[in-house]
């Protein structure tokens, strides 16, 4: 059933402190809405539980990219368009830029935000595996102050996060420490734009004389949360990339993912594709190293 707009309240205070005050006064009552690319879909379908919404769209404190000597802080309200057009972000975190290019079409990239993608907490979100491999930290803010949490601990279950009801994501903080790594992103879906992934991979690898010095792998749509693959990484670390290792990693990745059957794909296909994506990454890693 369609939603009736008269039953919903929406306010736009236009200032972060006022928004935080509102969230603190009645925790859990007010749902923040940024670009609306997820919230408005639920609203239109009559499935939005919240009746009171507070707009955080375009709040200047949430919309900037700020670089310090140790990290780059991307405002929680930065859109995918902001990300893909930011040279600092694209140079240091190419996997995040690839994901931004794949999310929705141009119109949704103009409105969808990275903070919204994280809080919406879909296991199929394209940008989240990139945040896992880059070891992102989230800077959360409320009227009580700020706190930092490792992004890897943020998703505590299917569509559940550790965000308190009075908190917002102020920034996503990334350390530019992967410049020597080969970066590889791959999405398997019906089409790239406007399609939700069946499986997607974000991968970083560093080779030294044919030996994998470091490797970081994360996948979307293969578990209740965006998934890092530590067991597969352990198989690879310190090993020489050859056909045997690649075969072993394929088996390890297929075993490590926890996919389900749903409207987009099957668990069996996803596990197979997960293994194949790791194979593709390792082959490229090896070729890239040979070319150098």
């Amino acid at each position, binding site marked *: 059933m369609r*939603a*009736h*707009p*008269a*039953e*919903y*309240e*929406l*306010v*736009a205070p236009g200032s972060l402190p006022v928004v935080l005050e509102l969230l603190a006064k009645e925790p859990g009552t007010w749902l923040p*809405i940024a*670009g*609306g*690319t997820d919230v*408005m*879909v639920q*609203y*239109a*379908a009559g499935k939005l539980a919240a*009746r009171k*919404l507070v*707009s955080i*769209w375009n709040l200047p404190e949430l919309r900037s990219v700020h670089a310090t000597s140790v990290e780059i802080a991307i405002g929680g309200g930065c859109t995918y*368009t902001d990300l893909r057009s930011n040279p600092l972000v694209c140079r240091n975190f190419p996997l995040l830029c690839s994901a931004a290019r794949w999310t*929705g*079409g*141009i*119109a*949704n990239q*103009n*409105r969808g935000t990275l903070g919204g993608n994280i809080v919406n907490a879909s296991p199929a979100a394209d940008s989240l595996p990139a945040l896992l491999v880059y070891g992102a930290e989230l800077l959360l803010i409320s009227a009580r102050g700020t706190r930092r949490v490792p992004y890897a601990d943020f998703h505590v279950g299917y569509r559940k996060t550790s965000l308190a009801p009075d908190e917002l994501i102020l920034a996503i903080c990334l350390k530019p420490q992967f410049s020597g790594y080969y970066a590889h992103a791959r999405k398997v879906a019906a*089409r*790239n*734009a*406007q399609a939700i992934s069946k499986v997607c991979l974000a991968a970083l690898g560093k080779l030294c004389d044919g030996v994998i010095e470091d490797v970081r792998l994360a996948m979307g749509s293969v578990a209740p949360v965006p998934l890092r693959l530590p067991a597969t990484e352990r198989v690879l670390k310190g090993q020489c990339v050859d056909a045997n290792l690649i075969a072993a990693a394929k088996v390890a990745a297929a075993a490590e993912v926890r996919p389900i059957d749903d409207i987009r794909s099957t668990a069996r296909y996803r596990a197979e594709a997960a293994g194949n994506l790791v194979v593709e990454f390792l082959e490229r890693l090896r070729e890239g190293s040979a070319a150098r």
Partner: protein
Amino acid sequence: MRGQLPHREKREISLNVNGRSVVVCAHPMERLLDVLRRELGLTGTKEGCGEGECGSCSVLLDGTLVNSCLVPILQVAGSEVTTIEGLAGDGRLHALQQAFLECGGAQCGICTPGMILAACQLLRKTPRPNTEEIQEGLSGNLCRCTGYTQILEAVAEAARRSVE
């Protein structure tokens, strides 16, 4: 259940649509799409999927392409909106409209306004797009009639004419 919920008052919201200042009376969560079509009679903006997947309801909001089905009207207060009705001027079609006509870029017409506005944003950012850039610029707009070829040709043709 619906009877127990408080019904809230409408508010006056000012915006600029196709160069004209307007004040609409709407509930803040009303979709920009509905306000354009019902309050302002601008029915060129179409509703397809209603969930941001098809691009039929694309408009320019402060010069930026958006799906108007996903924008609550309160977030448009003080902004400029351009719909398909705002592209032609002085009795002359916009270069994109003319090219879509000549190249056969429209059949049933439901996707056409959104396609043209998406192309409009593309050409503003990238005046001489290659095929890949045109495809990406229109990737959020679905057409079920043309097979896309004539649409892509129309955008390329409009770009050629605008640059000349």
